[in-house]
């Protein structure tokens, strides 16, 4: 029997070992299961875990063979707005089953795909959303997307999970209470729209339905966030009840909750979009470096996570605990650990680790942190732009061994640390002899240092695969501690924060060196790179 659209079942199970805390919020171990009717196999992803970010529908810097070779990529988050450059959006025209997977090259038997309208890491100013549309960004200008459009796109693309439209303002105008109320009403109404019954193609098989996640609206006002959640649980009546039948209230049709941190950090920061910086009259080279560097800011890594926790609690208190919680744009493992510990977040996007690959950082950290207290906090990664790596023939990370080592450290399975021979090289003529056999050697910091300084794109491919693999190992170890010795988890989080530098000085350093190289390479690339940083959050410009 073949797969019919919209018949995949998404389940989330909390594992019993999750330690209980007095606040009702604590770290949790879980498992998401995606089962597709008519297809063998279940896609299981254990949590806490992560979701790979995409740019223009693809994992930045990884060709499909390298995406396939990166086991850490199991779930990808696809912002749809770049496809609004064409009407109708091209992926909606893709035929066959799993059209979004097929179009973008993800494997239905390996990858879960989430489809969302907007890129959660994009905090650019945008025109206001309307009563019946969200303003989305595409290279051909701002596009208004109605809930009806969105539902049509989701039905045509058949992602595994769709995120309902949410009214999150990205305007410079201060948000009034009235605006907040309107935002909650719109977000709820737009969710209802996506929860409408899916037309059934026939009588056979299960009733088709969408796996819908909802963004937790309400901004930085705890009461508003609470009110939004409460509204999801209220029984609907009359026309609204008719819309979401057979569900009686919105939350019944919701598979999970998402939290975009960017608008929260924006709302909490006194200097953000309410006080835009004045442009400098004089533009010197130094300033250009700073500007370019500023465009690469990690997503608010140093912002106080503590302020987020009560806001996330306010959303979650009324809601059932049995659904998965996804956070977008957590700026460091420190923030991730805090949100696992204090809120019970289950999944994070990998934006931070992928961005590190853009700016030349090879991640190098483990959980729990290594024993002993270092003199100074350790960096989370190695800035391979730095001159100290020019003659450094060691592999990317000290915390992991490569395929060529045989010690007790965990192995990093990425294409850089554990490259493997191509299984079946092409032969272009009957005469060709097989290539000589040899075991590939792990890539070195000196080589990638060279590639970064010559702006060779291969550097970012190797770093992306590596960083995703390090993040994967990190979450595996978080789960192990939670499973084996949950009582120690909070202590290990604290120790991690002492051992590893949460201010991420290495990030600032990498940004500065990155900008210098960009300048050294001339204006053309810099201009395109700047344009890229302004428009697309992830990835680097193609070196032409």
């Amino acid at each position, binding site marked *: 029997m073949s797969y019919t659209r919209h018949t995949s079942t998404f389940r989330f199970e909390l594992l019993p070992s999750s330690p209980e805390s007095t606040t009702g919020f604590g770290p949790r171990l879980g498992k998401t299961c995606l089962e597709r009717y008519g297809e063998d196999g279940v896609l299981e992803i254990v949590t806490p875990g992560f979701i790979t970010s995409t*740019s*223009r*529908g*693809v*994992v*930045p*810097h990884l*060709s*499909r*063979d*390298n995406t396939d070779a990166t086991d850490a990529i199991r779930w990808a988050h696809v912002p749809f707005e*770049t*496809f609004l*450059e*064409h009407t109708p959006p*091209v992926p909606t*025209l*893709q035929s066959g089953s799993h059209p979004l997977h*097929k*179009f973008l*090259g993800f494997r239905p038997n390996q990858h879960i795909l989430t489809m969302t309208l907007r890129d959660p890491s994009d905090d650019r100013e945008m025109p206001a959303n309307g009563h019946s549309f969200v303003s989305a960004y595409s290279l051909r200008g701002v596009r208004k997307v109605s809930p009806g459009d969105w539902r049509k796109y989701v039905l045509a693309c058949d992602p595994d999970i769709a995120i309902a439209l949410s009214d999150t303002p990205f305007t410079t105008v201060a948000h009034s209470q009235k605006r907040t109320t309107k935002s909650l009403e719109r977000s709820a109404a737009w969710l209802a729209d996506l929860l409408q019954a899916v037309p059934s193609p026939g009588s056979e098989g299960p009733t088709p339905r969408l796996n819908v996640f909802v963004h937790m609206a309400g901004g930085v006002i705890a009461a508003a966030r609470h009110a939004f959640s409460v509204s999801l649980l209220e029984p609907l009546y009359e026309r609204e009840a008719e819309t979401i039948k057979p569900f009686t209230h919105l939350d019944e049709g919701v598979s999970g909750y998402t939290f975009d941190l960017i608008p929260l950090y924006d709302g909490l920061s006194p200097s953000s979009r309410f006080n835009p910086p004045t442009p400098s009259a004089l533009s010197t080279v130094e300033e250009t470096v700073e500007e370019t560097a500023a465009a690469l800011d990690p997503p608010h890594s140093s912002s106080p996570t503590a302020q987020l926790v009560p806001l996330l609690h306010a959303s979650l208190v009324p809601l059932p605990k049995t659904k998965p919680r996804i956070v977008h744009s957590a700026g460091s493992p420190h923030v991730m650990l805090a949100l696992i510990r204090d809120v019970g977040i289950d999944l994070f996007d990998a934006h931070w680790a992928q961005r590190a690959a853009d700016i030349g950082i090879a991640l190098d950290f483990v959980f729990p942190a290594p024993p002993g207290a270092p003199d100074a906090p350790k960096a989370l990664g190695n800035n391979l732009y730095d001159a100290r790596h*020019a*003659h450094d*023939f060691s592999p990317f990370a000290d915390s992991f061994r490569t395929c060529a080592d045989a010690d007790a450290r965990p192995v990093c399975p990425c*294409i850089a640390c554990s*490259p493997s*021979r*191509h299984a079946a*090289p*092409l*032969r*272009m*003529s*009957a*005469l*060709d*002899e097989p*290539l*000589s056999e040899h075991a*590939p*050697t792990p890539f070195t910091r*000196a*080589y990638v*240092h*060279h*590639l970064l300084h*010559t702006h*060779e*794109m*291969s550097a*970012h*491919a*190797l770093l992306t695969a590596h960083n995703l693999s390090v993040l994967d190992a990190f979450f595996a170890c978080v789960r192990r501690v939670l499973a084996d010795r949950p009582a120690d988890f909070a202590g290990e989080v604290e120790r991690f924060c002492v051992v590893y530098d949460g201010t991420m000085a290495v990030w600032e350093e990498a940004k500065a060196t990155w900008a210098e190289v960009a300048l050294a390479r001339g204006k053309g690339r810099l201009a395109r790179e700047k344009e*890229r940083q302004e428009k*697309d959050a992830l*990835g*680097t410009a*193609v*070196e*032409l």
Partner: protein
Amino acid sequence: MQFEVLAKCHTTRARVCRMKLAHGVTMLPTFMPVATQAAIKGLTPQQMEGLGVSLILNNTYHLNLRPGIKVLQEAGGAHKFQGWNHNLLTDSGGFQLVSLSKFTKITEEGALFASPFDGEPTMLTPEESMSIQHAIGADIIMQLDDVVSSLTVGPRVGEAMQRSVRWLDRCIAYHQNSGRQDKQNLFAIIQGGLDPDLRAQCLDEMVKRKDGVAGYAIGGLSGGEEKDVFWRIIKQCAEKLPEDRPRYSMGIGFAEDLLVCVALGVDMADCVFPTRTARFGVALTFKGPLNLRLGKHSREFIPIDDNCPCPTCSDGVSRALLHHTVTRETSAAHAVTLHNLTFQAQVMGRARDAIMNGTFPTYLREFFSNYFGDTGYPEWCVNALRSVGVDLLEHNTDAKVVEGDGAKWEYSDAS
């Protein structure tokens, strides 16, 4: 080097050879992808292996600047530095001195140029070029030659040719004293511009030095000269070069150029064209190049080429997705680069099989018919191949023939 001619075309001067170097066997004729800075742009060595590529090129000028010889020596050579355990060729660095540096002055001693690091006058001598290439450790190394643009006329062309011969002697002497001849093979470079007399003199002199060189390159072309002159020079050189040495046309990468060169007796060629054009969104196919940036590809849910074995096409990556991502996502550049290098390798791989099977003239006719049948055959290709006994227009009297360089491009949405 072990070099063996396995088969010759019964009609043209094309041949199939087996070239065994320190890092393995490369079958000729072949196209060599260019890894200027020790990486094929965007790809890993494992991906290159996957394409069946066994010989790539590094640029000496660039590697000498970055990472520098010290780093390469610490790494144990360029092979180890970039994780490439197959064959490698380096140029002499001379060409880039002329094309990239504004202040280069050629003296008998060597090329005097301003150091890109501190602006100080720096001398690249033939001996220094050999020494740098020894440190890089490529399987094939090139003599330092005195390069002039192929559009240069007057006494400078003859002077450069004669100096290149004298510099070859210095390179041979230095290389022979290095004791590295078992691992590294020195190629001479035929110069002489577009002047058949100068080319003839250069060929005479350099063929005399055959015992000191493992192969010959044809240099000083591919710089904007008339195609009709280009092929005649290639033909002249290939005819005079010794049978038992590989022949390498430098800077040749368009499919039609490659096949004409092979038919005239060339064994190897290199060019940045297939990889560079990929980054700009142009995919090469047997029916001509596709410009994936054009709107007409935005809704094409088919691969670049259904029959292509490359990772991109065999995985079904659609032209529509490539249209959405080219020039914006590096992974699209990687995807098209993988495809274009496979295309080049196929053009040459099929030539090897055809020469071996005695069907090379048929292969040429079919290739040109598919590639140029709709837009017209470049006249220079027709003439060049007629000179070695293949008439592209045979049985095809209606075929259109066009003057000029005939390079085929998909420029706009108009077509």
